[in-house]
């Protein structure tokens, strides 16, 4: 579980996060949604420790991040997996090497054991015949699968995904969303996903936090989002006619 209390972050006197509190539960897909510029990416980077927060508290499994020793923070980092928007695969390594990388770096396992573990994960994310391929030789969907495999190869307790299905066709995007949800439930990971894809919200939004102008405007589940009266949320989520109709049908039911 991850808990944040009143976190604030500014850049050059411009307040990006103005005091956000939220709880992200274990074994659930927690989605952070909001318009571009609402502070989603900064919020995620604060959770990851890539940005230092100005004030507030972040707790991982009830341990406050700021009070952790350097050694504890390093352990925590190894318990985190991250899927970046552009996948962030290492260009100089093939698919298998990319996935083996964290194991080689942080465990004292033999090469054969590392390869075996990597191949278990490769199978789990349904990557077929791609071990020897380099990132520029595979499709966007496959890159995401490799990024997910690399993120979960160390059995993380926390999984962070920044726009995991951006640039993917709708079918592949749904496959990736479902894969993340399955993995979250199977390994009981606390998963936090940054997205502005409404299909993802409807598909895997077990918990949704809506950010607006650096503040938490609303939170709930994908079921709640149909019935919410919050104007900012409805304007954002139901900005397309299709989703408006979907909502009408749902409410009639």
């Amino acid at each position, binding site marked *: 579980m991850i808990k944040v209390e009143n976190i604030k972050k500014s850049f050059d006197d411009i307040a990006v996060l103005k005091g956000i509190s939220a709880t992200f539960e274990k074994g659930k897909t927690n989605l952070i949604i909001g318009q571009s510029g609402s502070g989603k990416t900064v919020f995620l980077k604060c959770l990851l420790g*890539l940005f230092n927060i100005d004030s507030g508290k972040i707790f991982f499994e009830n341990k406050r991040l700021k009070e952790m020793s350097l050694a504890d923070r*390093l352990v925590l980092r*190894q318990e985190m997996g991250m899927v970046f928007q*552009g996948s*962030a695969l*290492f260009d100089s390594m093939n698919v298998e090497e990319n996935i083996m990388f964290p194991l080689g*770096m*942080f465990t004292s396992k033999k090469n054969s054991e590392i390869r075996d573990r990597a191949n278990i994960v490769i199978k789990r994310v349904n990557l077929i015949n791609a071990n020897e391929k380099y990132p520029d030789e595979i499709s966007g969907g496959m890159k995401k699968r490799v990024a997910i495999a690399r993120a979960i190869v160390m059995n993380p307790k926390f999984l962070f995904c920044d726009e995991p299905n951006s640039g993917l066709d709708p079918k592949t995007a749904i496959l990736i969303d479902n894969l993340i949800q399955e993995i979250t439930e199977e390994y009981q990971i606390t998963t936090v996903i940054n997205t502005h894809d409404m299909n993802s919200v409807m598909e895997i939004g077990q918990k949704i936090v809506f950010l607006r102008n650096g503040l938490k405007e609303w939170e709930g589940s994908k079921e709640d989002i149909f019935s919410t009266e919050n104007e900012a949320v409805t304007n954002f989520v139901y900005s397309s006619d299709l989703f408006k109709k979907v909502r009408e049908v749902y409410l009639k039911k």
Partner: protein
Amino acid sequence: MKILSHIGRYFLMIQQTFGKFTKWKMLKQLILKDIDVLVIGSLGIVAFISFFVGGVVSIQTALNLENPLLPKNLIGFATRQSVILEFAPTFISIIMAGKVGSYITSSIGTMRVTEQIDALEVMGINTYNYLIFPKIVALSLYPLVISFSMFLGVFGGYIACVYGGFSSSADFIEGIQMDFIPFHVGYAFIKTAFFSFILATIPSYHGYYMNGGALDVGKASTVSFVWTSVAIILLNYLITQLLLT
């Protein structure tokens, strides 16, 4: 003030580079890869330039020795002095600032814009050490490249001089042995050692701290080349002043 902030950040980067070390098993692979790309991969261009510039230095010297009273062995002497003191350590380092420096800036810069550095940081890796330290170690072999350049520069001068009909082989060889001061070679290698550190770190700095997209990677490479060259020229002046005067 901005330049002071850059200098401060550069030295902090150096400090972090020697901070928490990456696992040796991984670091060894990175060092070997960087030796291959940065050192061995530069030998071809260094050989080509050294050989021909050595030849040109020798021809220019020969053409300027109009007085028949001046001994022909001066061609070999002048070629040796020019190549060992300045051409090989400084001129080749400026060329390397373009070749090796641009490679370092663009490779680290691309990792920055494609979030690969963020991915390493999220894993808890000291990215300064992981990315920059192997380059410093690899370029510690750079004096070998310069000794190769010295040899080929003088050899190019010999070929151009003897086969161009400017002096005899014996005169040229006598010239390159005349008044030889071993410390001059030491001075050249001391300069080279400093230049190798600059070649590894200034381009890394520009790559590591770059912002933006693909176009900015190109801009960062250009800026990196300019500042690496400026640093080499200034350091060259300083070391020469300290060691030779």
